[in-house]
Every structure is written in structure tokens, then in C-alpha cells.
């Protein structure tokens, strides 16, 4: 079982596909769950405390906005733990404020920098593309399982 980072990290489709074909998806929900279930000081809504931008310094420089560094404290450890990645390139749903947009760029950059199996896709736009999309993910994850 390989830990597979999914981008967009909130994707229902990718999260399901990875788990369905026998691997562990690394999604933002698991990172948020850790924070929501850890006692400390109240910092609603996501329990992102002032400590998180400090932790984010590992992946982004000090002059990078705190919003990016705070987000990187969620995604950075997951990228380091990942053994593979599936990236959807036309994920408009990942659009957001500058914090989200720059974090997305940095996450994609780090995923491309890391030497690991990577699958690049676009969302399917019809049924034929749907078959190709699912087949590509299945092949990728099956080969991943066989390699380990």
C-alpha cells in the first residue's frame, strides 16, 4: 500500500479511486482532522494556529505570505510522506484567493521536484474520456502496487 498524494487535495474522485484500488490517499481532510482532534488553543474554523505559518517555513521562504506558509504546513508533510502523486491539471475547483493560488503552484512545483511516480490528467469531459481516465488511474495504481 502506497501513500498517494492527490491534487486537488480535496478531490472526491481521486480520493475514492486511490482507496478503491488499494492505496492510501493523502488528502487535506486527513491533515485537517489531525488539527481538529488535537487539544490546544481555540482557533476556528480550521484550528490553524499561529504556529502553522512557522512550520510552513520549511517549504516557503519567510517573505512568502503567512497564508501560503500556513497551508504548506498541511500539505508539506504529506508531500514528503507521499510515495506517488496523481495530479489533475484543469481543476478549476482548486481556484481561490492568492493564498490558495500560490499554494497550489508551490504544491505542484514540489510534486514535480520530488522523484516519484506521477500521473498527470485532466478531468474527463465525456464518457469515452471517463473510461480512459479511470483506466489510466487503475493502471498507474496497479503498477505502483506491483513495484512495492
Amino acid at each position, binding site marked *: 500500500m502506497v501513500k498517494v498524494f492527490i491534487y486537488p487535495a480535496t478531490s472526491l474522485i481521486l480520493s475514492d479511486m486511490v482507496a478503491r484500488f488499494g492505496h492510501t490517499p493523502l488528502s487535506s481532510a486527513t491533515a485537517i482532522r489531525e488539527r481538529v*482532534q488535537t487539544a490546544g488553543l481555540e482557533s476556528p474554523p480550521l484550528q490553524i494556529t499561529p504556529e502553522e505559518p512557522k512550520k510552513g517555513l520549511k517549504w516557503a521562504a519567510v517573505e512568502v505570505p503567512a497564508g501560503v506558509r500556513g497551508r504548506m504546513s498541511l500539505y508539506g508533510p504529506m508531500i514528503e510522506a507521499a510515495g506517488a502523486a496523481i495530479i489533475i491539471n484543469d481543476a478549476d475547483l482548486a481556484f481561490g484567493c492568492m493564498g490558495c493560488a500560490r499554494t497550489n503552484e508551490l504544491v505542484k512545483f514540489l510534486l514535480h521536484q520530488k522523484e516519484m511516480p506521477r500521473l*498527470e490528467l485532466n478531468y474527463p469531459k465525456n464518457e469515452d474520456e471517463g473510461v480512459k481516465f479511470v*483506466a489510466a488511474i487503475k493502471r498507474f495504481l496497479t503498477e505502483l502496487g506491483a513495484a512495492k
Partner: protein
Amino acid sequence: MTPYTPVHVGSVTKYVVIESFDLTPADLAIRAYEISKGAMIKETCFGLVINGREDEVNRIIAGLRKIDPDHIFVKDRGFPPGDPRRCRANLGGARPGYNGMEYEMTIIPYISHGLEELNKKDATAVPPPANPLEHPLLDISRLKKLIDAQES
């Protein structure tokens, strides 16, 4: 600074989303209650939210998937069901994060079709999708067609 005391520590929460003409969230909820041993199950408009011990949640989901494996999709959730920081009952409007799921719900029928087709044939026999990182040059014949279309 207010101390924060978490609830449902050590539990996991998962969404079960249905895209099916044969199954409703209510059908799935009844089945989930039948096989549940102490998990919290909440029925929603798109499926279920299940909270409990990880092994118990996984067991329930494995049972639910058997009903319609190609049309049931599962993902993790960070917050427990009904959490006031996320629940639309407290906030009004769509739950934060629902927009992403709503967008993917428009694509899920293609995924379900793909899963159904792959039950009939081998994944290795299917050609790979177009590489999104490639930007193919504009074909000369297509360029000529575009020019002709502009001129006519």
C-alpha cells in the same frame, strides 16, 4: 485565548456519495443502520456522513459499496458530522467545501461509466488519455480551415 477541547478524538469521518438512478441516500442510510455497530450515521442530500472508529467505518463502507460499487464514492472528512464550524445549519448557505464536491458530481457519471466499462474489459487495453502537459502545435490544415472560416 480560549482552550480548545476536541470532540470525537480518535474517530474518522467519511463521506459516502451516491451517483445512481437506482439508489437514494435514504436506501443507503437504512442499510448502513442495519450493519452499523455504534457508528454515527447522518443522511444528507448527496449520501451519508459516517463517523466512528476507523475499522468500524471501513467495515460499514465496504458493506455499502457492495450494493452498487460503481456508483458509490467515498472520501475522508476532517470534521465530525454536524460540527458547528462546518455545518450549514449554523452557517447558512452551502457548506464550505461543498462547491468542490458539487463540481465533481458533474463529472462522476463519466467515472461511473468508466468503472462499468472496465468491469467488461482490461484496463491495459484502453488507450491512455491525452497528456495535459503537452501543448501540440497547431496543425497546418486546421490553421487553413480557421483562416478560410474567417475569410468567408
